[in-house]
């Protein structure tokens, strides 16, 4: 196992988040009650997803700059683990909304924005699968990935704040950051984000390595065909 210290760190952080997230002190708030602990498990998912998508966009830009196919592999797998987090975020959000807002999918701009954002990225995967030629696929989907991120941020973070939304920080609602978000929450919330990011990177890394193995094997098959 080479360079695996960050994987161990990921496991340690997530254990810390499980223990402190369930047993640590939290502010007493009406209506949400104990479900404030979902901040560690649900909100952190979205922030980790955004970070992974940002990293994916960076690697797409790098591919367009340098033209190495490896960068495109990294970009696509980072996007995949981010979409995985996004779908988990939608599901966990539904559960939370059901018990605090009384509806699994209230017609909230942030929810619909998140759904559209995930669809945009599913379209990215669809676009990738529709090309046979590797370089062509990498070039076109890299450009798409950059645009997708540029649309994703306003749709999920900026537009919901301009209208009325049930989420904190929108319409008349205060943000968590203003007064509810005390140091007890921060102590678990920030490690939770880092833990999720590392977990996403780990998932992506495994898939990238399998991709590289497949590519090497295919090349070996082609060369052995030529020799024989």
């Amino acid at each position, binding site marked *: 196992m080479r360079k695996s210290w960050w994987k161990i760190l990921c496991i340690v952080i997530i254990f810390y988040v*499980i223990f402190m997230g369930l*047993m640590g002190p*939290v502010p*007493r708030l009406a209506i949400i009650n104990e479900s404030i602990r979902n901040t560690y498990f649900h909100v952190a998912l979205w922030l980790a997803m955004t970070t992974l998508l940002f990293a994916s966009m960076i690697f797409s830009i790098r591919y367009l700059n340098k033209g190495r196919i490896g960068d495109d592999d990294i970009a696509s797998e980072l996007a995949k683990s981010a979409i995985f987090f996004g779908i988990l975020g939608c599901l966990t959000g539904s559960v939370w909304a059901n018990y605090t807002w009384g509806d699994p999918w209230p017609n909230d701009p942030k929810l619909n924005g998140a759904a559209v954002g995930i669809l945009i990225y599913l379209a990215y995967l669809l676009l990738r699968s529709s090309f046979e030629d590797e370089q062509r696929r990498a070039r076109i989907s890299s450009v798409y990935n950059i645009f997708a991120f540029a649309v994703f941020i306003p749709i999920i973070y900026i537009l919901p704040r301009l209208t009325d939304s049930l989420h904190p920080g929108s319409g008349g609602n205060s943000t968590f950051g203003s007064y509810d978000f005390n140091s007890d929450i921060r102590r678990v919330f920030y490690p939770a984000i880092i833990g999720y990011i590392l977990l996403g990177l*780990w998932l992506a890394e*495994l898939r990238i*390595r399998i991709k590289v193995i497949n590519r090497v094997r295919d090349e070996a098959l082609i060369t052995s065909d030529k020799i024989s």
Partner: protein
Amino acid sequence: MKKVSLLLLTLFLISGNLFAQAVDNGVPMADKLREDGKIWVVVAVIAVVFAGIAINMLRIDSKVSKIEKELNIK
């Protein structure tokens, strides 16, 4: 003087009541669960499940490394 001190005492008692409310403002939380101590069982179960997932991921990781070694990647 006596009246003033009485007034102060009353105010102090009222404020003490308010302090108590600030600590426990009647918002229901899972205090009972923690008193019973059984919530730790749930935490332990979740921890065991995640430990299993983590071990599984580490094993997949090492298997991929082994294949990489066979194919001389990096």
